[in-house]
Each structure stands twice: as structure tokens, then as C-alpha cells.
């Protein structure tokens, strides 16, 4: 089971997965539980400080999350590690999931 910390900061929803990997297994819960939290939200920040690695399945789940948000909604990533950044750059999805250094700052924008 994927443990999550969910906070409300300055109108944005900050979701922090407490798992070392966002892979196919975690993706299942991102698609169900997190999708239910995110539905209808304009600003969501996924804070990855505990996540060491993410694979294609995890990324596919993020895409699915974004698609459940209303038009104009943004899903931002915070504290992404080097391997996750490399994955985003390789798949050219770094523009789709912009990074912020500090979730609170992201939410203020």
C-alpha cells in the first residue's frame, strides 16, 4: 500500500508519497486514490522527497492524474531527484510536469 501525506498549502494540494519507488505497483494507487483527491483541483504539487526512482508506469500514472484535472490545471513536481529529472528529460515530459524547488512557493504562484 502506498502511504501518502496530503496537505493543503495556499490553495494548492501537496501530495507526498512516502515510498521509495513510483513504479507499476505504486501507479495503481496513484491512479485510484490520488486521482480521487486530485479530481477538480487546479493546483497540485507532487512532492518527491522520499521517492528515489520512478519508472514509465509511474510517469504514465502522472499523465493520467493530469488528465483528471480541469483544463488549465497544473501538476507540479517538487524535490525531484537526478534520476527522475533524467527520466522527464528523456521522455520530453519536463514541460508537462514543471518542477518547483519548494512546494510552498509553487503553490503561491
Amino acid at each position, binding site marked *: 500500500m502506498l502511504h501518502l501525506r496530503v496537505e493543503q498549502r495556499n490553495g494548492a494540494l501537496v501530495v507526498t508519497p512516502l515510498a*521509495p519507488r513510483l*513504479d*507499476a*505497483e505504486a*501507479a*495503481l494507487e496513484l*491512479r485510484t486514490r490520488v486521482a480521487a483527491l486530485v479530481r477538480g483541483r487546479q493546483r497540485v504539487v507532487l512532492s518527491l522527497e522520499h521517492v528515489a526512482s520512478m*519508472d*514509465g*508506469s509511474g*510517469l*504514465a500514472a502522472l*499523465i*493520467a492524474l*493530469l*488528465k483528471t484535472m480541469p*483544463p*488549465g*490545471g*497544473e501538476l507540479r513536481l517538487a524535490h525531484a531527484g537526478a534520476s527522475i529529472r533524467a527520466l522527464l528529460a*528523456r*521522455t*520530453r*515530459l519536463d*514541460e*508537462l510536469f*514543471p518542477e518547483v524547488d519548494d512546494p510552498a512557493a509553487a503553490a503561491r504562484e
Partner: protein
Amino acid sequence: MDAVFAPRMAAATPGLRARADAVRNFAFQALAVLSIALGGWYLAWRWTASLNPEALGFAVVVAVAETLAFVGAVLFFLSIWRAEDPPARPPPRTVNDIRAEPLANDRPIRVDVMIATFDEPVGLVRLSVRDAKRLAYPHPIALRILVLDDGRRPELRLMAEEEGVEYLTRPTNDGFKAGNLRNGLEHTDGDLVVICDADTRPLPALLEETLGHFRDPDVAWVQTPQFFYDVDPGVRLPEWLARRARLGRIGRGLGVAVEAVVGPVAVGADRLGTDPHAFYDVVQRCRNWCNASFCCGAGSIHRREAVIDAAVAQFGEAVAAAVRPFTRGVTDPGLRATLAVTLAAQAARHLELTPYAFHVSEDVCTSIRLHADPDRRWRSVYHPRVLTRMLSPQDLLAWSVQRFKYASGTLDIALHDNPLRRRCLTSWQRVMYGATMYAYLSPLWTVPLMLAPVVYFLAGVTPVRAYDADFAAHVVPFLAASRLALLAGTWGVLTHRGEQYHLASFWLNLRALAHVLARRPLRFPVTPKVASARRSVRLVVPHLLLLGASAFGVVYRGVLLAGSPAAGTTTAYVANAFWTLHNAWALLPFVLAALLPRRPREVAP
């Protein structure tokens, strides 16, 4: 219908097979080079010294057709250049045996068996589910069986409950089978995915035999041969001559002698020409050595990571392509970044993430996507042993639906997303995909070549100056060498039915070509699994016209020749009559399959 089944290649041990392959490869390659050289020599002569000046237009059309056919033969020979099976590897014990980066907490491999169905009878799907439940594995394994029902049928849900397997459905039918599989992937997390159609019945050894290939972390999928358990195997020639033709021992000896020369012959086998084993045993096997065997859907096992990663990369590519035109002109970096983020989110909303391409030929598309992945050299494996069985198309109509799908799908890829333009394919992969695409253009040369004798019979004109000794000296060695090369290249595999149906598909392939050129939408009809009692006369109208015109022409020109020698030479008549007979031989089984009534088969137990 269950007890009689035995895997076709059970007797072939890997060691013997490898030795036979070495002989086959050498003999075939020598004959192929010879026939290509002789063919080049024949065509050079044909273009420079044989065109009939009295009917130049006709002569050029036929010569162009011959040249295109020759290119097709060269490509085909290259595509079956080398047969080689993958080395067997022991079944992996845990997931870390098949991963590039091991997990900290190792665990058993998770396998999801996905049975995609839309409108097939419940009894048929139940057979597939029951066989999936019998899958065996020597190590602990986490096996999930899912019925993916695009028909949203309560009775199917009930069946799944009764059998103790999972049932999944979705509100729409977007993307048809590919969309259905995507829905399956979104609800599961297995490391490997087994793709089954509603009628795909796995044998217990499917996983045990194939999962070893995934020990190589670059292997993206393993395809096993599709085997139709309901195809009539026919009677082998010695048996047929001895029993049916009542020739006794002499007949048997004759049959054995003939088979020794031309390979196995089965009388009355597979009247509908559906048996795909020539495709698997020859074409797919010969693509293994250069990593070009492709995925054919049912009967394949996929690495989730490969399918998803490639799909995500393609999605990212599409998002970037949608954003680029708008951000290109923006010079301010900050503004450009903000704009890109907004546009990317907007584009992503309208794009589909498709692990299996939403395309009629989703399996070929997926194969190309993975083979051509710029980030990762994914490998494909063709495992040569039959490990699933399924139903053949039940009548000519079903056959035509399926073939039209293959033809239009492949031609659509060739015209609009040609893999030859992708940078990351190797030269041999290009040859293999090129050969497949080129083969679907075959009516461009088979139609003129089949019409040429009719034109001769009716109008008396010939495409060559004369059917003389010079012509024979050029064409006969080439034809003989190609036949021998084909024989060596397909040794031990029955190919004559495939050859006949290849020629007889001219009309279907021509329609597919017109369909794709006109950019008409490609439909995704499900191949019917139940025979209709209807005869399919309309499918063979062009064939009947061609056969009728040929028969009339033979008689007409024969009568003219008998009356006056000025009507042409006997050699021209004989040569054209021979060619016509060959065409009739090729078309007749197809025509008979359409005209003879067929008994519908029982599919439910």
C-alpha cells in the same frame, strides 16, 4: 476435440534443429544468390533484347511487372536469409532475474494473463480461461487472469466469477482491442503481460518455456507461433496415394519419393488457407537472428516496462511536437518556459497514451515503436514452439476480414508512418519491415502478370519478341533456381497453400491499397469466430471473371491456331497456356472455398 492435440514441433529437439538450420541456411543462401544473379541477367536481357516492338506498351507493362516481382523475390529471399532459434534459458526464479536493476526486496514474478474479448461466445472464452488457469511454473509466481470484456456482458462477468478469475470492463470501446488492453494494463501491475484473444488457449508450458528469454533485460516481448487447432491437417501424400488413390505399396513409394524431392505434401489440407505456420516457421523464425521478429498479438508475452516506457516516450514526443510550433518564435526564455508549460498541459489533455497503438495493426505498430526506440535497444524473441492454440477464421468472409485488416494496416503504416524513415532501426530490421510492406503491394505486379496471357489469347499480342529458345534459355534457369531456393528456404514447411492464397489475395490487397490511398478511415472489425452459413460469392467475382476469360481465351486462340497458322506460334500458345494453368491452380482453392458450402463448427464444449 481436446484429446487429439499434440504440439506440432514436440519432436524437434533444439540440437537437431540447429544442425538442420546450418544446412538449410547454407543451401538456401547459395541458391538464393544464384537465382538473384540469374534473375538480374534475365531482366537485363528482357529490357534490352526482348521487348516486343509491335506491342511496346504491353511489353513494357509486363516487363515492369516482372521487375517489381523480382524486387519482391529479392526482398523475400533476404527476409528469410537465415533461420536461427534463440537459445533456451532456464525459467527465472524471481523478478530480479529479469530486471536490469534489482529490487531491494526480491519477490516472485508477477504475470497478468489478459484475455481480450468483445462478442465471442461465453463458452469459447471459458475454454481460454480454463487453460490459462492450468499454466504451470517451476517457481513461485503471482499469476492473475483477467477477462477484458469490451462487450460489457453480465453473462461473461458471471463466467469469470464461476472460474475464479478477474473481470474488467470499461464504459467505452475507444481504441478497440488496443484500448481494451490499455485498460487492463491500467488496472494491473504485473511485470509481464500475456496477450490472449478470446479464443487463445495457452498450453500449460507457455510461461515455463518462454520466461527464460526475459533474463535478458532488453527483451521486450516473446512471440510464440499461432497455431489453429481446428485446421484440417490433410493426408500426407504417401498415405493418400496408398489408401485414397488405392495404389498400395507402389503409391506409398511414389509418395515418399516425391516428398523426398519437394518436401512434405498434404492432400486436402487447410482448404481455406488459414494455417499460419508457414508464416511463423519460416518468416518469423528467419527474423530472430537480427532482432526483427514482430509481435502478432495473441500468444505473445510482453514486458510491461518496455511497452509502457515506449508509449510514454511517444506521448512525450507528441506533446513536444504540439508545443514546438508556438514556442519556436518566442525569444524570451522565461516567457517561452511559461508558454511551454501551459501549452504542454493543454496538448496532453487531447493526446492519448497508448501502450498498444490505437491502430488496425496495433501489434506491428508496437513492434516498430519498440525496435526503433532511440533510448533503449529493445529486443524481440520469436520462440519457435507452439504454446498456445486458437481458432482459425471460420470461413472465407472471416478470412477476408482478417486479411483486409492486415493489408490495410500494413499499407497504412507504410504510407503514413513508414518505419524505414526511423533512424534507430538497423539495416536488417529495415529489410525485414520493408519486405513485409512491399509484399502487400503485390497486386501491382501479380495482376498484370495474370492478365498477360488473357491479353495474348484474346488479342494475339505477346510481351516478348518470340517464345523461342533464346527466351527459354534466359527464363528457365532463373525460374528453376528460384523454385529451388524457395524449396530450400522453406524446407519441411508446407507452403503451396500460402503461395496460392498470396496470388488469390490480389483483389483484397488491391482494395486495401485503394482504401488506404483514398485515406478512408481504417475500421477495426473483430474477426468473426463463428462460421456463417452464407456463401461468399462476391469475394471471388474478379477471380471468376479472370478464370472465365482465361478459359475462353485458351479455346478461342486454340481454334484460331488450328484454323490458320498465321494466328500465332504454337510455342507462344503453349507458354501462355502453361502460365494460365499455373494461375488457375493458384486461384481455384480460393474460389472453391467461397463457393462450396461449409459446415459451421461447434466452438462451445
